[in-house]
């Protein structure tokens, strides 16, 4: 399980926790997020912009 960080605003997608508000269940791998996924907080960084932090 890894974490991915938005380089603009610091939002973290934690695969272990998922993102319940956005409808991504705990354990959802980052790779399984939709291809059009953009940062839920700032929206100006796309999935491919996210940086793996752990």
């Amino acid at each position, binding site marked *: 399980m890894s974490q991915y960080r938005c380089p*603009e*605003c610091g939002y973290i997608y934690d695969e272990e926790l998922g993102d*319940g*508000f*956005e*409808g*991504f269940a705990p354990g959802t791998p980052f790779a399984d997020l939709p291809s059009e996924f*953009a940062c*839920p*907080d*700032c*929206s*100006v960084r*796309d999935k491919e912009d996210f940086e793996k932090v752990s």
Partner: protein
Amino acid sequence: MKGYTGTLKSGEAVYYQDKKRLLWSLSVIYPLQPFIGIWLYTKTGVEAWLLLPIGLSYILAPLLDWLLGEDENNPPEAVVLQLDADRYYRWLTYTVVPIHFVSLIGVAWWAGTHAISTWAFLGLAVIAGLASGLGINTGHELGHKKSRLERTLTKIVLAVPVYGHFWIEHNRGHHRDVATPDDPASARMGESIFKFAMREIPGAFRRGWQIEKDRLERRGTTAWNTNNQILQSMALSLVLQLGLVIALGLQMIPFLLVHNVMAWWQLTSANYVEHYGLLREKDANGRYERCQQHHSWNSNHIFSNLVLFHLERHSDHHAHPLRRYQSLRHFEKVPALPSGYFGSYLLAYVPWLWYRVMDKRLLQLAHIDGDLNKINIDPEKRQKIYAKYGRPDQLQPVVGQNNSTDGAA
């Protein structure tokens, strides 16, 4: 006055004071301007005074922008975190939320309980709408923030103009698609503000609803759910406006219709001037380049920025959407509007004049340099615009290519 100290990358210490610190409170009191007209009417009995706020917005505000000029000062990067963390600035955005309710309810109550002519009654509806358009701006500033409190206040304040979908479609749709033909909230070269409104208002609602519907469906529910953030805000709108109708009678129906449309029109006006004709290019993979500083029109005019929470420093806002208003920066050589927003709105309301001023500015931007292929053009105006401004070295417009799609998602 409070100051902030920081250290530049060079190691040099820097001290910064925000000279506009107290003046930002103008954004808080500006929505109360309808009461100035009402007060003058009560003193004179002259109904024309009721319409004074229209003059304040469209004559006095552009005049003050012209007289006071521009402010290009930036806070040093070294103190931006401190400036962002200063709670004074966010308290101003909290304080203005109830003021928007006071403005609508107060004006509606006064209009509904005094014997005034029909034109004065509807004029007050227009003025209340202008004030509630500022409420959308408040929702814009609050809606970009991460805290639960600010997001809740966003839904509350957007209930006043019945625009609860705005912050979702703006944050998740407009910021993603800005300056592309896919964005119903980015105006195209040759598109009048009136034509833009017919694309922007329904297009933005559809996009906001779709974004929220997709989120709720991922959570395993339908869009018709109490967790729908648009419906939460709209429910408050219903209580507010139905309450006014019950309390003040059926006369409130036309009043509120005019009020709502005028509030939406303020946002339409802002959206129209903010990205007119600007276009992000696609890379080899067909992905739009990241929004750059030259993809927004800006203004540093002092007065209108002070009453709009610095909205006119729009390039920095799109680069860093979570950055608070007091920290937004000016950049050299970014696209610049000829006036602050209120003066620019006036220009936009006269399309031939708008084209005359803005098309020239657009074509002269350094990254465009007269190349029509780098402009977001209204597909229905492409032939005409290429015939008027096209250069021999430019490709001829091909229908269906790049910026010829109809956009509204």
